């Protein structure tokens, strides 16, 4: 074997050996040396603040994705903006605080059965009549893991971002209402209660 050939084979073996050791986690990856370590939160206890009895018959959920944005004009950006208006063409880039969030969450709707009263039910011979409360939106869920920050310019405080997230939640609820989630939830609630009471042996069940 020539000297040159031996060097090439040795280099290949070194690369292959390094790659294998790295795969087996014996060596740190070269690309990870300048990679920031992830920030991990401490394990802290979970405290129960309140236990509430509810009676929510959840019959429809709407999964949706919304985009919300917000701009805040700061003192500095106001100066930049006024300078740009005076100039024939905008010279300086805008210094407004800007945020664009993408939220993926769900809206839950149904009927609150805890609102049923004695007068909501009436039985006459083999006919059962049930007056269900109006369907309602129970909650719109947008958890921290459901948000993606697409653009963030300037320093945004937690309180300012919260207002933008509330806007996203409202947008998601409005879109669910546009899809007639309440009408569909009401129909489904009636069907579930009709099945439940029918399975109990009532021959005629009237749900209003």
């Amino acid at each position, binding site marked *: 074997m020539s000297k040159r050939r031996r060097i090439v084979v040795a280099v290949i073996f070194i690369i292959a050996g390094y790659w294998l050791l790295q795969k087996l986690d014996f060596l740190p990856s070269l690309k990870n040396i300048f990679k920031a370590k992830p920030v991990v939160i401490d394990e802290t206890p979970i405290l129960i603040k309140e236990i509430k009895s*509810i009676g929510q018959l959840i019959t429809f959920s709407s999964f949706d994705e919304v985009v919300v944005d917000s701009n805040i004009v700061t003192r500095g950006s106001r100066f930049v903006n006024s300078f740009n208006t005076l100039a024939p063409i905008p010279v300086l880039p805008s210094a407004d605080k800007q945020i664009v969030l993408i939220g993926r969450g769900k809206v839950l709707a149904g009927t609150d059965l805890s609102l049923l009263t004695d007068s909501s039910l009436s039985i006459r011979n083999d006919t059962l009549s049930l007056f269900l409360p109006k369907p309602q939106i129970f909650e719109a869920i*947008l958890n921290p893991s459901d948000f993606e920050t697409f653009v963030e310019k300037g320093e945004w405080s937690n309180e300012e971002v919260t207002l933008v997230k509330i806007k996203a939640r409202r947008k998601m609820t409005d879109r669910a209402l546009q899809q007639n989630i309440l009408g569909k939830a009401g129909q489904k609630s009636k069907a579930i209660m009709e099945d439940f009471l029918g399975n109990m042996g009532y021959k005629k069940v009237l749900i209003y």
Partner: protein
Amino acid sequence: MRQSIYIIVLFLLACGKNKDGQEPTILSLKEMSDLATVEYTVTKIIKASDNKTWFKIGDRKILMSCEAHIKAGIDMSGINKNNFKIRDKTIEVTLPSPKIISLSIPPEGVKTEYEEVSVFRDKFTTRDRDALAAQAETQIRNSVDSLGILLQAKVNTSFFVTNFLKKLGYENISINYNGNSFFNQMQ
């Protein structure tokens, strides 16, 4: 020789991980049949120190608080005629086992209580804060069993169904979960 080098390089490239494997989410309206009977409100402190990266000078710390709402109850779609045993004013109902229905951490429930950032470091961004809150969300999700919410859901569901059946005129009511007698109401 050159060919063997190409083969090895190709082999190494082929062994790389594909990181674009995220499943697309289907966005739509979905029917449900869940009866939520209990809601827990829990709080948690989110504590983090960003001082583990060797090339970043100075550290930054953050202390946040978060409030979560967890709902539990039963899936009513699993109830059919076989779940009822009725004789005159006596009724025996077998209900499905309770489950967690939803976990919600509303945006207004997450608050930054304290933040300390050294001169050479950037402040925590929205993405950073969300990532920390998402970790808290996972910790809460993983600890749900230890909170006793499913047991409380059984108690509340039994109470709720019993009250409903009383309105229908039943006097002796027995509620079971998966064949195990859990709650008996005799009047």
